[in-house]
């Protein structure tokens, strides 16, 4: 974890879970594995608060624990996963994706599970049904079974998965001791569980609908109590969590599809979409290529609405295969069928586009041109850069040095003679992709952190005025609903002078802008991150 990431994690934790959890979380982030006693001692927080915070972090899937790392009988040690904390930035995007794929029900399911970290299926279904019913017009209500189908579809497409059963300390160490002496109970990956995507049987379907009219709090609470009393739905202890990896894969696929759409055309992007969809569940998350598909298979699973005839599909496929620059769709003649795989590293290309765009914004399009040139030609001398980029020598030098000082471009010395004399040395400029991506990612984290801090500052500065305006609007609403004379309202309105309202408006505008910037950057972040990780994977493979 870099300092920027730690800072951002702290801010996010504070925003979502409060100061105490933030303190515990950042301490865990900074110090790695810690046991409870050390945690309490070093954070100087009351024991019960630390316990609660750790519970919250474990519940949210951000914290894992293992026993016996320092020999048998050692205390349980906790560690936090910073990456999962950073996922919080992206929660709205996950929810929105679920909404666009599975409608309101899917949205609410994902939202509830994200908010609570992990939930049992029955609990989720009942909560979501309640919320949907609450939003429906009077007399209508949501059927549990509908929510159950939405839930099962989310599970089928691997957007939800069972959370790994955490083995409580002590019981497992004795079992593991026989097989391997060091017997370290590491946190288990959810994928190792064979039942990871298996739905449990729940007998919640029999209950059907539940009307929940908003008559009064008392009725609601009694209803709630009644519900909790007979909540023996048969899936206690089976918790579900959001499969972030799957969401990221989905984002990646979307990026590929849009890239194809902008490079070629809509139809070919639809073909690629079909290919990706066909292999989305069967391909492991970190594979470089999708499963091989035959042209026949692709043809069969194309949606009938596109009306693509078989010969045209073949033409499109050859087009995709032949595309020299961007598409890494490989074909193999395998027996008789035409096997296609989509290179998932395509997303590295998307990543490249992203940082080119960033460069454009920051240093102008001509610097971006130099950068692109270096990317394509790998190593260039300064003279060559000036010539190829078709930029006046002086400006090109300026830009190149600027890029160099920002660490976006690297300089390599190759001496002709062993004395390293500059006159007898080649100075080659190169772009090193992976470090550059990392650098930009760190910049992004820093920006997001700054944005959050700025937002906090703005809200703090304008707290009084914004609260006042809220009160005034409330009074206005109550005046209009109760039918009282508008005279009192005008009296109230006098409070808020013109500059004040302007201030409130400006402030809210600022906040809106800050948040949308946040979203944009997060998008960029995600691409860069996936680019970085996929590149790293590629390097490891090589």
């Amino acid at each position: 974890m870099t300092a920027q990431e730690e800072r951002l994690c702290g801010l996010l934790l504070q925003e979502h879970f409060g100061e105490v959890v933030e303190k515990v979380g950042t301490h865990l982030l900074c110090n790695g594995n810690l046991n409870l006693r050390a945690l309490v001692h070093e954070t100087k927080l009351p024991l019960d608060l630390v316990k609660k915070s750790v519970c919250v972090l474990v519940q949210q899937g951000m914290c894992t624990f293992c026993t016996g790392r320092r020999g048998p009988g050692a205390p349980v040690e906790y560690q936090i996963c910073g990456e999962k904390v950073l996922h919080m930035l992206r929660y709205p995007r996950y929810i929105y994706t679920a909404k666009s794929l599975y409608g309101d029900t899917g949205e609410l399911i994902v939202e509830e599970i994200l908010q609570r970290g992990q939930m049992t299926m029955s609990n989720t279904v009942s909560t979501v049904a309640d919320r949907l019913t609450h939003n429906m017009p009077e007399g209508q209500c949501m059927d549990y079974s509908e929510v159950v189908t939405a839930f099962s579809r989310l599970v089928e497409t691997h957007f939800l998965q069972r959370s790994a059963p955490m083995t409580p300390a002590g019981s497992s160490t004795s079992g593991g001791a026989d097989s391997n002496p060091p017997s370290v109970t590491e946190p288990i990956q959810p994928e190792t569980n064979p039942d990871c995507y298996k739905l449990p049987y729940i007998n919640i379907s029999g209950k059907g609908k539940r009307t929940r009219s908003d008559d009064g709090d008392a009725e609601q609470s009694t209803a709630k109590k009644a519900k909790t009393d007979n909540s023996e739905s048969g899936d206690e202890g089976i918790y579900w969590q959001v499969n972030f990896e799957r969401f990221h894969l989905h984002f990646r696929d979307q990026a590929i599809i849009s890239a194809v759409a902008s490079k070629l055309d809509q139809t070919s992007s639809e073909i690629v979409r079909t290919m990706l969809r066909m292999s989305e569940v069967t391909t492991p998350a970190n594979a470089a290529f999708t499963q091989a598909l035959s042209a026949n298979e692709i043809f069969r699973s194309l949606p009938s609405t596109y009306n693509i005839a078989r010969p045209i599909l073949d033409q499109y496929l050859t087009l995709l295969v032949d595309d020299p620059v961007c598409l890494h769709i490989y074909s193999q003649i395998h027996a008789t069928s035409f096997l296609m795989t989509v290179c998932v590293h395509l997303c590295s290309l998307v990543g490249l586009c992203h940082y080119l765009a960033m460069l454009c914004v920051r240093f102008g399009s001509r610097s971006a041109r130099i950068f692109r040139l270096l990317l394509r030609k790998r190593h260039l001398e300064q003279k060559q850069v000036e010539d190829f980029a078709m930029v006046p020598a002086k400006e090109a030098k300026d830009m190149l040095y600027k890029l160099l000082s920002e660490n976006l471009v690297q300089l390599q010395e190759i001496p002709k003679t062993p004395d390293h004399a500059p006159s007898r040395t080649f100075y080659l400029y190169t772009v090193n992709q992976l470090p550059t991506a990392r650098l930009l990612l760190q910049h992004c984290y820093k920006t997001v952190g700054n944005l959050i801090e700025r937002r906090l500052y703005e809200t703090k500065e304008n707290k009084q005025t914004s609260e006042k305006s809220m009160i005034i609007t409330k009074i206005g609403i109550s005046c209009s609903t109760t039918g009282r004379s508008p005279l009192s309202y005008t009296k109230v309105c006098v409070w808020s002078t013109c500059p004040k309202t302007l201030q409130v408006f400006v402030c809210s505008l600022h906040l809106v802008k800050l948040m949308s910037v946040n979203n944009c950057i997060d998008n960029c972040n995600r691409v860069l991150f996936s680019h970085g990780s996929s590149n790293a994977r590629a390097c490891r493979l090589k």
Partner: protein
Amino acid sequence: MAGKGRGIAAFTFNLEALGITRGSMPEAQRGPTPLFPQIEYKPGPLKAGEEEDYMRALKQEMRGRMKDLPFNIKPHSGKRDVERYKDKYTSAIKKIEDGDWTPDWNSLPKELKPQRKIIKKKTDLKKLKEMSKKDKEDLLSKLDELEKRGDDKSDEEDEAKVEKKGDGEEDEIEGELEEEEVEEDNDYIASYFEDGDDFGAGSDDNIDEATY
């Protein structure tokens, strides 16, 4: 080289070979860079549209909701000097919040579970011990007396008597000792549980309910 005096940069090579001319040297920097430097290029426009707006609204709503969920842990408010009217309501709200979420203790390490407070029997051990000391002294003095008296009288009779008396006394003592032992056992258990619970201030706030 030799012709150049002191204080003039003396490179062993021609600077022009690197493409640096006299005019192209950057200006020397004075002081740290400004906090908000001038931007050369204007940033691009923000993405706009329904999608972005919706996501922004979601984010805002989420942030608001997370504040109300039981996962948002509030620090202990300091001990109040004066009892306030609103305390009643805040504590009631807190109770509701606490009852809202019970983690599945099966999937968590045991140590995280708040311990049930063991209700200690309030017994004054010191007093008891003192009492027993006094009793012992009394007993001893009594025995001494009896011994003195026993010299005069016939042995066997007295012995029986003393034994009878002594027995009675001993019974009492034993009873007391047993009580003491019981108390000590109790004390031991309490302190054992305290051990995990005692460090850190405010551990008294562990309510016996294992819920929050």
